[in-house]
């Protein structure tokens, strides 16, 4: 496994983060600008992916505690870790995402099914970035909370 170089770390009080929906796009745009090198297309890719993840956090996680964000990159990948204190807050969304299956093809099928369904699916955003941008998502839990990791290819769009 290649080593990843840290780009930036941030910490948000969830109480203030959830004061405005705009915070999701502001934070994702800022992080995307830090990540990109020169290719303008990838800025929109990264920004869209990160924004979707922040919006899931905004919707699912409460106002107590802090959210830690870390971005790192290797030659081939961008890693985004978002750590929140409340594991249970993400459970429903993650279960719906995991139920779509582990292969990219099945997740894409699930995403398309969601689009054609009137039944709301909390994982729609996660399935979308997985299908449209080939983002790999993982959720790790420990005693202190949960870390949502997005792995994105560098330079693809």
């Amino acid at each position, binding site marked *: 496994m290649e080593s990843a170089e840290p*780009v930036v770390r941030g910490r948000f009080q969830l109480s203030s983060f959830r*004061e405005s929906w705009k915070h999701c796009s502001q934070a994702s745009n800022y992080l995307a600008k830090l990540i990109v090198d020169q290719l303008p297309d990838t800025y929109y890719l990264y920004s869209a992916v990160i924004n979707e993840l922040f919006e899931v956090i905004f919707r699912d996680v409460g106002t107590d505690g802090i959210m830690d964000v870390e971005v790192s990159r290797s030659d081939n990948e961008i890693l985004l870790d978002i750590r929140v204190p409340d594991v249970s807050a993400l459970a429903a969304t993650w279960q719906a995402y995991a139920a779509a299956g582990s292969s990219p093809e099945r997740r894409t099928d699930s995403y398309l099914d969601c689009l054609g369904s009137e039944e709301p699916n909390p994982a729609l955003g996660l399935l979308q970035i997985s299908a449209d941008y080939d983002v790999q998502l993982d959720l790790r839990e420990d005693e202190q909370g949960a870390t949502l990791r997005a792995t994105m290819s560098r330079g693809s769009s």
Partner: protein
Amino acid sequence: MSDQRSYGEFPVNGGLHDSLDMCWWLRPDRLEHDWKDVSEVANFIADYLAASAASTDELVLRQLRDSASYVVNELVENAVKYCADDFIQASSGADDDHWTFAISHGSPAETVAGLEEFLERLQASSAEELMIEQVERNFELGSESGSGLGLVTIIADHGAIMAWQIVPNGGRCMVHTAARLPTKPTFCDWNGAG
């Protein structure tokens, strides 16, 4: 036992970064490589605070947001110039009366000595007096770098309330700089009546 020195009234004793709404660990090598990244973080922090600001006066909020961006940009630029660590800590927070920014970084002791000399002069005179003095001095010396003009400007032109804590540790020091911007305009008449 520490011979920590303070200049101005630091807004919170200890744990300042933790008490604020948002904190970033920035890499000075990246910022130095591309100064655009400094303005990016400054604009982001200012926009973030503005997004949840209580003010309903759009003109006041826009001016406050622009001042915040200017102040953070200046403080982070200074931190990049004088940082001796592999990270700079930048925090921001807001309450009804102030937007607060805190920047921390390590510096060599000799660099900090120059900063403290400037801070002594700042305490002994007003920012306006010091600004004129520095402009004249820079004109004579033909240099602006390290003059402190940027700090004086954010006090005199943006109404920032500044404070510093210097914490020595061996041959280097941690420099904590805090700036508070009043959320209600006090340094000029926003309606153009004076």
